[in-house]
């Protein structure tokens, strides 16, 4: 499968957006670790904005960035997250241990895995399908396959947002996601002078590490950060080959042409 990357969104520790991260990803500037800052989403009205969670804001931040220059009104979208809103799961499971469990209605409707997808369609007034999925540590690849097959089926552009917040203390041991991280990719049909990904499922294979040690240390902190080796290639503006881990121990082999 062949798709173009029309735009990229990025948020993570030391990364505020793809444009400012590009010199670091390309190896021209040193990576400086700093806590990730998840901004409020400007697309939602104030009333809705107050109801958002870190997970929703994180997903919408990279979705917004990757689609800044495109028509969002009919854009199909894929929201990919390993774990969903673990902060809410924590609060609800905690409430359920009480003798008279009281679950917050707002927390409950935000607990669904597609809460960011739903908020995105509301924020952009967009009736196109929006989906939400998981592939555990290989969530990024599950999302890439879903987005690429959507594009292959009906053409047009497709947004992929891959994101996970850091696990809170209770889950840190059982699910060590230690940094929030999100990447947005706007996929477009191949052949318009943009970077092209040619993707094929492989039997198995070790994922490509990051070129830079500091980024390699970041890659394992979050399923969405598995995109870093691909982002390095895209940032350099050169071609290359990247192997990403796919679900069930398979691999996704990606040939990038600039």
């Amino acid at each position: 499968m062949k798709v173009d990357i029309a735009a990229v969104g990025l948020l993570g520790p030391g990364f505020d957006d793809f444009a400012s991260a590009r010199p670091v990803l390309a190896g021209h500037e040193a990576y400086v670790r700093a806590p990730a800052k998840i901004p409020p989403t400007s697309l939602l009205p104030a009333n809705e904005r107050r109801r958002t969670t870190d997970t929703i804001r994180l997903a919408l931040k990279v979705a917004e960035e990757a689609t800044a220059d495109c028509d969002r009104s009919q854009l199909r979208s894929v929201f990919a997250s390993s774990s969903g809103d673990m902060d809410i799961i924590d609060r609800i499971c905690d409430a359920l241990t009480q003798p008279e469990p009281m679950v917050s209605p707002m927390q409950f409707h935000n607990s669904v895995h597609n809460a960011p997808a739903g908020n995105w369609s509301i924020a952009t007034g967009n009736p196109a399908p929006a989906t939400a999925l998981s592939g555990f540590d290989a969530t990024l690849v599950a999302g890439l396959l879903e987005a690429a097959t959507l594009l292959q089926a009906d053409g047009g552009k497709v947004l992929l947002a891959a994101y996970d917040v850091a696990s809170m203390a209770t889950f840190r041991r059982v699910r060590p996601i230690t940094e929030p991280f999100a990447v947005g990719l706007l996929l477009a049909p191949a052949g318009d002078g943009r970077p092209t990904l040619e993707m094929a499922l492989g039997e198995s294979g070790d994922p490509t590490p990051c070129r830079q040690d500091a980024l390699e240390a970041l890659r394992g902190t979050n399923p969405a950060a598995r995109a870093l080796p691909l982002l390095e290639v895209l940032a350099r503006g050169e071609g290359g080959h990247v192997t990403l881990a796919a679900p069930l121990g398979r691999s996704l082999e990606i040939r990038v042409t600039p």
Partner: protein
Amino acid sequence: MNPLVISAHTLTSATGTGRQANADALRKGNSGLRACDLESVRLDTHIGRVAGVEGIALKDRLAPFQCRNHQLAELGLRQDGFIQAVEAARARYGAGRIAILMGTSTSGIAATEQAYHRRDPATGELPPDYDYQHTQNMFSLADFVATRLELRGPAMVTSTACSSSAKVFADAERFIAAGLCDAAVVGGVDSLCGMTLHGFNALQLVAPGPCRPLHAERAGISIGEAAGFFLLEKADSGAAGPRLIGYGESSDAHHMSAPHPEGLGAARAMEQALQRARLPAEGIDYVLMHATATPANDRSEARALVHLFGADSRATGTKGLTGHTLGAAGAVGVAQALASLERGFVPATAGLDQPDPELQLDARMTAEERDIRHVLVNAFGFGGNNCSLLLEAA
């Protein structure tokens, strides 16, 4: 779209374990709902509980997956020769060429709820035997099914609340068309847990008695659990069976937990399914509605039906039998539609002794015996996430 043949399938719900029991209940209108008798949840409501889930032990390579959701998945997989059908397909296509695309809304969260009850009182640590990856993580259902069926094709879990296991049919069509796989095992599993029972209760969407879809005095949902699985193959593969000939997906872009009042998103999903199948609205024998039995949901969906098919179109709502099985609702709806296509009847809408005249639908309390060729199945979820599937008789 290229039609897909549904060459094997199975359903386990509160109305029975396996296809025969479910089809019988669907024809007779026998409800599987009962007063909530879960040990962990004390709420004045009815539930659609599957018998025998607790007795399923997952052993050896399946042992890490032990939790209610995967016990229910295992119980479901064992019915109707489904495992044998997948084994034959695996021999034909290879384990790496069959996709595993599953839908669930809450995965194995009951395991996490139990672990929270057993947290270390001093440190708050979760118990050492709690396995997050293989129980609560959203992907664990696809992981379990792939492990159980020894498959290694492209795999993922779609989790879009109550449309989850309808959308996986659309995913399968696209994955096969893109050449990622030759066949797909799709399905949905959701199981009873404290989070959904208390959550829907907090939203005041739960009926005190058994839910009554499309009824003039409907008062909310009854939550159920179910597992449904389907083997999908290309039409030119030589496989025989009923076919998926259309799908439609849309977003309401309206509200997180309330449907669009005019059912715009629902209508769009149904329209797309008809377009992909190149079938006019008149070609549909009846619509197997999402019909959760909340006043707003049924009204919104009915308006979409009236918009597309005109007043008094033939429709049915089956959640009075099984309860609303959330992420498994799409799989339940498809399996029920297949029973109706195979055996020739329009399913009963259980408890419908007083249809809501405002809905302008032809829905009936008893099943109607007649040949069925095409059924549209709806599944809609929180976030305004809609999916409609069009099925054709073998």
